């Protein structure tokens, strides 16, 4: 499997508190990697560094062999819009837009014509089994449906990697499960990798591999054996 994202020896402090203390991670193309660890272990910081949202104090993150730090701000933003997708626990949809418009938004921002963008968005809603929410606003759909809209929006651009931070954290077991099943199946179909931060083992079980973040370092327990 070719390496898509490689983080080497990341260090990051917030004030006096070290969040990452020499974390190294490799994510292969199309690979689903769960990032687990106790609260405050640095797993969200690791995700943010991998996604280029947070700049580490030292160490490098490379995407397809290119260090993120070597890219201009404009290029890094373009990468985040086109190649990266994001799914968070909640609060990520634009409340004034319909679900269809929310999914079409990243395409519109990249200059795709409205009709094309909405056609592709509709295909993704269909794929995530929520075609009926197209005209509804985020406040009118359930938590599970909202997360599926967020997944559709993350994948609609043809993202190569989706960063997901507790995507089922606010859902009950049944809905969380449905989101994970559809999310991972859609990512596998389109060959996108997922970096999945979760504290729930049943959610992590949808991954190919687990990384445990402990005291700011990333451990691969299965490879270590």
């Amino acid at each position, binding site marked *: 499997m070719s390496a898509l994202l490689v983080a080497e020896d990341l260090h990051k402090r917030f004030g006096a508190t070290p969040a990452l203390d020499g974390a190294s991670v490799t994510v292969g193309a199309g690979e689903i990697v769960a990032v687990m660890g106790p609260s405050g272990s640095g797993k969200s910081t690791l995700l943010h560094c991998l996604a280029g949202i947070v700049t580490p104090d030292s160490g490098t993150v490379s995407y397809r062999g290119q260090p993120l730090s070597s890219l201009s701000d404009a290029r890094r933003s373009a990468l985040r819009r086109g190649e990266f997708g994001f799914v968070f626990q909640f609060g990520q949809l634009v409340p004034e837009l319909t679900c269809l418009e929310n999914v079409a938004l990243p395409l519109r921002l990249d200059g795709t014509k409205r009709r094309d963008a909405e056609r592709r968005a509709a295909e993704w809603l269909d794929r995530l089994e929520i075609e009926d929410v197209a005209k509804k606003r985020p406040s009118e759909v359930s938590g599970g449906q909202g997360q599926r809209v967020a997944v559709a929006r993350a994948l609609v651009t043809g993202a190569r990697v989706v960063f997901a931070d507790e995507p089922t954290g606010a859902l009950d077991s049944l809905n969380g499960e449905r989101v994970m099943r559809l999310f991972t199946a859609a990512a596998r179909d389109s060959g996108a990798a997922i970096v999945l931060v979760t504290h729930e*083992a*049943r959610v*992590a*079980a949808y*991954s*190919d591999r687990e990384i445990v973040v402990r005291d700011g370092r990333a451990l691969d*327990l299965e490879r270590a054996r």
Partner: protein
Amino acid sequence: MSIGQAFLGLLETRPSHGYDLKRAYDERFGADRPLAYGQVYATLSRLLKHGLVTVDSVESGEGPDRKRYAITDAGVADVERWLAQPEKPEPYLQSVLYMKVVLALSTGRKATEVLDTQRAEHLRMMRELTRRKSTGDLSDQLICDHALFHLEADLRWLELTAARLDDLAAAVAR
């Protein structure tokens, strides 16, 4: 496992031959452990002896006679009683994992490694069950979920124990 009660429950829906009972049982409840024919006929003769089932008809043909079994009123009452009775919760107080952690600590080995090795193995099994669930029907999903929730509980215990290792090491050293 309550094979007898399961047979009675299956027979309550319709009378069946031993072979069909085995097939229905394996399909619904057998998971990876199908019943042996010896078990099937031993169970049926026990149920027959206790008057919970009766032989409803016998077909002769090539090979041995094929008996069709039906549930009796006493059998229905037995199913009713069994369903109404809660199962004993099984608290695994004699945990081998706990024993391994304590012994690792008291012999100066790394208990974290014991916990990590187990964690990786648990997660591997959880992945396998999750995959199986994605291709299975609803009953596969329910059975796998039952196993997944139990494994998850173990994992949470592993995490909590990892977080308490220093305290446990101090207690063991005393």
